[in-house]
């Protein structure tokens, strides 16, 4: 993947994030192709959630550039970024529907806030979006009355409300049973096929990766370990990638000196 390529909708260059002294992302660079499903893969604590927060503008990086459609979002102010956000949909880990509102109101919220559409038009669009994710007839329900899988589907309907160019998913299958998770994965694949959206999924679930990914970016300890297609990932001989794919536990080995220092408390 070359930099400056028009086929890439998101390009990240030399991104560094620090929380205090701890460096979470160490100068990472990659590109996300347009109209494909890209999975950001990695173990817990590798910085993948932090990376997602940078892409959707919830966190500002310490240094580095994030180009979305060729524009650097790290130097934008809130108003400029909000224009970009209108073309993004995000599904959060817990779906993050507003609990005080019904599903209809949740899905209608971005339309009411950002468009001047008539309420009757909004109603029709809301029903279309809910139907799209298989939730027709649930519009009057509150999020607390739904199962985890249904909440996530409703979250997708809300993310799709403004027909975005980009969809971001944070651990879509977390906390779901295998059947529901597979249903959600299938929905993600269908969305790409039908709407040609650029979809970015952050996950560590291997079955999901194999089902939905066109491209994979694998993070490890704050660095990009792998970037390429799913086939290339499967064929990779890298030790840490193989460990991840074959679900082998990480064995930490201490040298005697390290162990002594550790138990001595410094």
């Amino acid at each position, binding site marked *: 993947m070359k930099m400056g390529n028009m086929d890439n909708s998101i390009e990240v260059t030399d991104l560094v994030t620090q929380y205090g002294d701890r460096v979470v992302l160490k100068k990472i660079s990659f590109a996300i192709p347009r109209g494909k499903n890209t999975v950001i893969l990695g173990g817990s604590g590798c910085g993948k959630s932090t990376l997602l*927060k940078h892409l*959707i*503008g*919830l966190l500002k990086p310490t240094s580095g550039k994030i180009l979305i459609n060729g524009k650097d979002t790290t130097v934008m102010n*809130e108003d400029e970024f*909000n*224009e970009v*956000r*209108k073309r*993004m949909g*995000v599904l*959060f*880990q*817990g779906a*993050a*529907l*507003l*609990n005080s509102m019904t599903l209809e109101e949740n899905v209608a*919220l*971005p339309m009411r*806030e*950002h468009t001047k559409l008539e309420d009757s038009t909004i109603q029709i669009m809301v029903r279309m979006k809910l139907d799209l994710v298989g939730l027709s007839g649930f519009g009057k329900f509150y999020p607390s009355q739904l199962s985890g899988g249904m909440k996530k589907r409703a979250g997708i309907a*809300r993310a799709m409300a403004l027909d975005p160019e980009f969809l971001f998913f944070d651990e879509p299958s977390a906390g779901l049973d295998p059947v529901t998770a597979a249903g959600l994965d299938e929905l993600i694949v269908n969305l790409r096929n039908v709407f040609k959206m650029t979809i970015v999924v952050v996950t560590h679930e291997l079955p999901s990766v194999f089902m939905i990914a066109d491209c994979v970016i694998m993070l490890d300890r704050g660095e990009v370990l792998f970037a390429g297609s799913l086939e290339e990932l499967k064929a990779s001989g890298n030790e840490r990638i193989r460990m991840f794919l074959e679900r082998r536990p990480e064995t930490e080995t201490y040298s005697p000196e390290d162990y002594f220092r550790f138990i001595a408390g410094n």
Partner: protein
Amino acid sequence: MPSTAESVFGFIGRRAVSLLKNVHDASRLINNTFYWTFVSPFKGKPVRIRATVSEMVKTGYNSVPIVAVISFFVGIILALQAAYQLRKFGALIYVANLVGVSITRELGPILTAIIVAGRSGSAFAAEIGSMKAAEEVDALVSMGINPVRFLVTPKLIALMIMLPALTIFSDLVGIFGGLLLSNMLLDINAVNYFQQTINSLLVKDILTGLVKAWAFGVVITIVGSYQGFKVEGGAEEVGKRTTASVVASIFLVIVFDLFFTTLFYYFT
């Protein structure tokens, strides 16, 4: 090992840095809240009317019973305490003056504010805090909706209207409590008591009370929302922040009361 001096300066430095950060966060919230409430509606970003009305019902209308009961009791207590002293001088009719002035100038606004801080200030912190914990605030941001405009502005407008309104109500009920007691136990004719109250009260007594109530409404909203937005972790922190919001808003209400009372003493 750092020396004692190093630890002392380190301690002072860390506390100062975290204090400065809190001051910074609080001023930013205040700035944003006033911007989204008073400036942006004139730039084509309207206030959410329905949410505001719903907040007004929750914070104002639903507090009416408790405000009524407490104000009524305090009116009675004030009349009794006043009678205890005034009886010695045979000046029982001045109970009306004392009850009227202390309720409208002081106790009406502050009692209402403390009740609302306990009911609504804590509710604001808990609501925003649990939304923060469930990533709902992040979701708002990612949809391009400013959380301060969406969550805080309706609450601020609701309290700016409802706290003075509740205060007027509290004034009336408190005075009525004093009247009832004086009529029944102190043998003061109700009409005389009423006349005496009207004569003793000045418009400025009531107005200064309402200005205070308005300021208390702002303080309670800002403190509750600030504590809510401070939540980073889970449910446990929501509880902690809720408690902190009640303590801080009652404290700040009294600080502002002191400030306004002093101001009005010299300048009205």
